C-alpha cells in the first residue's frame, strides 16, 4: 500500500510537531490549489470525528470491547452541551462549561452502562451497546419537554476562546483550535498507551483469562476504558453540536453514525492513534468533501440526482463504504497504520 509507505518516513523526518504544523497549514494550501472548495469548514468535521474515533479506539482498539453504541455517547455529549448552553434554559454555561460537563456526563454514562454489562463476554456486550444506542435515541425523542424533540436545541454557542467566538466569523482559528484539541488528545492517549493503565488494557484485550490470573482487575480495567472512551465520544458530541450550533434531531445519532466511527477505527488500524486520524480523514473526507464535490460536479454536467437516484454519488455512500471495508479486510486486515508492537 502506498499511503503508509509515504506516511511513515514523513513522520520520521518531520516529527509529531511537524505533522501538526503541516495539518495546520493544510486548509490554506488546499484552498490555494482548489479555490472552489471551502476546506476550512469541511475539514472541521474530520477533526471532530477523529476525536469520536479516539473514544471508540480506547474501548475497541485498546481494550478489545466491541462498542456499537458510540453514537449514543455522542448524543449524550451533544445534548448535555445543548441543555447547559442553550438560551431557553437557565444554565447557559458557555462553550467551555458545556464541554467540560459533557466530558463528565459521558464518563458517568459509560460507567453506569458498563457497571452491570462489562462482565458479559464479547458478542453479548456488543448487543447491549447496540441496544443502548437505540434506547438513547428513543429517550431523547420522547423527552420532548427537555430535548425539544426533532427540532433540536439551538442556537448553541460556537467554539470560543477567551470570550472570542470563533465559530462562523473566524473559521481558520476554529479549525486551529480543533486541531489543538486533537493534538492534545493524541498526546494524552500516547501517554496512556505507555503506562500501566494502557498496558492493562492491552493485556485484557489479548487474553482476559491470563490477565486476571496475573492479578489484573479485569472489570475495573474495562470499566475505566469504557468510561474514558465514552467521555471522549461525548466530547466529540459537544464539539459537533457547537460546530453545527444545534444538537440536531435525536435521529441523527443513529446506528449509521456508530458504524462510521467503527469504520474509522478499522480503516486506520485498531489501537493506533495516527491510524484513527488517518481513518477519519479517509471516511469523513470521502463523505463530506469528495462525495459532495462529486455531486456538484455531476449536477453541473447535467446529471440530476432528483430524477435518477443512482445518478447521485451520495446515494452510493454506504455501498462504497461497505465495499471498501470488505476490500480492506482482505488486503490489509490490520488497517492502514497498524498499532506497533514491541521492537523487532
Amino acid at each position: 500500500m502506498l499511503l503508509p509507505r509515504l506516511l511513515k518516513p514523513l513522520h520520521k523526518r518531520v516529527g509529531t510537531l511537524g505533522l501538526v504544523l503541516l495539518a495546520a497549514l493544510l486548509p490554506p494550501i488546499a484552498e490555494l490549489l482548489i479555490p472552489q472548495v471551502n476546506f476550512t469548514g469541511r475539514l472541521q468535521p474530520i477533526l471532530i470525528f477523529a476525536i469520536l474515533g479516539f473514544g471508540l479506539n480506547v474501548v475497541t482498539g485498546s481494550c478489545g470491547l466491541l462498542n456499537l453504541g458510540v453514537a449514543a455517547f455522542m448524543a449524550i455529549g451533544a445534548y448535555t452541551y445543548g441543555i447547559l448552553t442553550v438560551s431557553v434554559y437557565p444554565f447557559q454555561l458557555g462553550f467551555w462549561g458545556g464541554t467540560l460537563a459533557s466530558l463528565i456526563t459521558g464518563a458517568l454514562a459509560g460507567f453506569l452502562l458498563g457497571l452491570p454489562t462489562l462482565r458479559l463476554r464479547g458478542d453479548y456486550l456488543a448487543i447491549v451497546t447496540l441496544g443502548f444506542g437505540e434506547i438513547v435515541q428513543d429517550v431523547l425523542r420522547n423527552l420532548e419537554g427537555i430535548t425539544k424533540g426533532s427540532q433540536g436545541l439551538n442556537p448553541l454557542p460556537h467554539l470560543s476562546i477567551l470570550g472570542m467566538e470563533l465559530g462562523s466569523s473566524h473559521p481558520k482559528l476554529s479549525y486551529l483550535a480543533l486541531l489543538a484539541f486533537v493534538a492534545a488528545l493524541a498526546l494524552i492517549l500516547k501517554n496512556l498507551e505507555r503506562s500501566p493503565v494502557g498496558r492493562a488494557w492491552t493485556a485484557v484485550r489479548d487474553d482476559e483469562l491470563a490477565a486476571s490470573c496475573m492479578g489484573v482487575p479485569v472489570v475495573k480495567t474495562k470499566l475505566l476504558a469504557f468510561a474514558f472512551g465514552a467521555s471522549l465520544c461525548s466530547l466529540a458530541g459537544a464539539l459537533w453540536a457547537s460546530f453545527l450550533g444545534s444538537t440536531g434531531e435525536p435521529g441523527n445519532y443513529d446506528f449509521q453514525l456508530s458504524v462510521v466511527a467503527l469504520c474509522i477505527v478499522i480503516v486506520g488500524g485498531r489501537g493506533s492513534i495516527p491510524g484513527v486520524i488517518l481513518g477519519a480523514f479517509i471516511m469523513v473526507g470521502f463523505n463530506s468533501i469528495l462525495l459532495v464535490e462529486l455531486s456538484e460536479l455531476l449536477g453541473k454536467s447535467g446529471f440530476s440526482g432528483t430524477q435518477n437516484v443512482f445518478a447521485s454519488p451520495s446515494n452510493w455512500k454506504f455501498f462504497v463504504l461497505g465495499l471498501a471495508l470488505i476490500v480492506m479486510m482482505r488486503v490489509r486486515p490490520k488497517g492502514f497504520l497498524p498499532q506497533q508492537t514491541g521492537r523487532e
Partner: protein
Amino acid sequence: MAILSTDALTLKFGGLTAVNGVSLAVHRGEIFSIIGPNGAGKTSLFNAVSGVYTPTSGAILIEDMNSCRRISAALIFGLMASGLLTAFGFLLIFHIAALWHAVITARFVFRQSFDWLGALEAIGHYAREQPLQTLIFPMLLGATTGTLGALSVWRGSRRSPEVCASFGLSRTFQNVRLFPQLSATENILIGMHRRLSSNFWSSLLHLPGMKRQEKTSKAKAHELLAFVELEESAERAAGSLPYGYQRRLEIARALASDPKVLLLDEPAAGMNPTESVQLMQLITRIKERGITVVLIEHDMKVVMGISDRIAVLDYGNLIAEGTPAEVRCNPLVIEAYLGTGAHSE
C-alpha cells in the same frame, strides 16, 4: 504447615465429575507434582485452585485460610451505596419530565435571571405534591435492584482469579497464554501490575511519580528476564518469540507477582531433552528463592528428578500421594499410569 491445601474438593461439569473429593496438602518450600493419565482432572484441579473454575463443593485453603473474599465493611457500604444510588436513579427517571417542567420550564423566563434557590424550593414543592406511592415504589424497586445486583456481582467474584492472585497464587498455562502484542518486558510488567499503582491521572499525564515507578519496575523486570535467561529478547513482542522462550517468559511473568505458590501446568510440554534439563534447573532455582512450586507434568524424568512429593490422579480421584520412590512402587499408580516399564527405570 501446609501453604496450599484442598479439602474434599469436587468439581462437576453437568454429569461429569472432573475432580472427585480430592484432599491435598502442599508444604511450604517444596516441589509438589501432580501426575496422572490424560483427562484425570489435573488441569481442572489447577483451574479450581487458581480461581478459573468455582468448585462444586469443598474448600481451597491458602496458609490454612479460606481463599475467598471475606464479608467486610467495604462490602456492606458498597451494597448500601449501590442500593441508594439506584433508588434515586429510578426516582429521577420516573419523574424527570414533570420535574423538569415544574422546576425549569415553568419558572424560567427567556433572557431573565433565574432564581436558583427558588428552584430548590420548587423541587421540594413538587415532591410534596406527588402521591406518596409514586415516590416510594420507584425507590423501593431501585433499592432492591441495586442491592441485589451488587450482591450477585460480589458473589460471582468471591473467588475470581484476581482474588487468588492477591492471595499469592500465580500460574502458567498448558498452552502458553502470553500477551502476544506486548513486549517481553511488558508481559512481566503485567505480572507486577497488582503491586504497581496504576492511577489513571498519573498515567494520563505521565507524572514524575509514575515515571519513577516505571523505571524501577522495568529494572526489576530485566532482573527476572535475566533469571530465565531471556535478557536479549526483552524488547521483542512476546508473540514473535520461539516456543521455548515463550514458556520461560510465561514462568518469569508468573514470578513477577511475587507469588507464594507457583502453579506450573506442563512446563516441559514440547521441549527437547536439553531444554527440559534446563527447565529442571530453572524450577530448582525457583525453589531456592523460597517459592513453593506445584507442577503438572507428563515428562517422568522431570517429575522424578525434582519433585519432593507427588500426587497421582486417575478419573478425578486421588489414588496415591508420597515421595517419588513411594509413588514409583505403588501398584495402583503403575497400573493406572506409569506402566510396568517404569518400575525398572
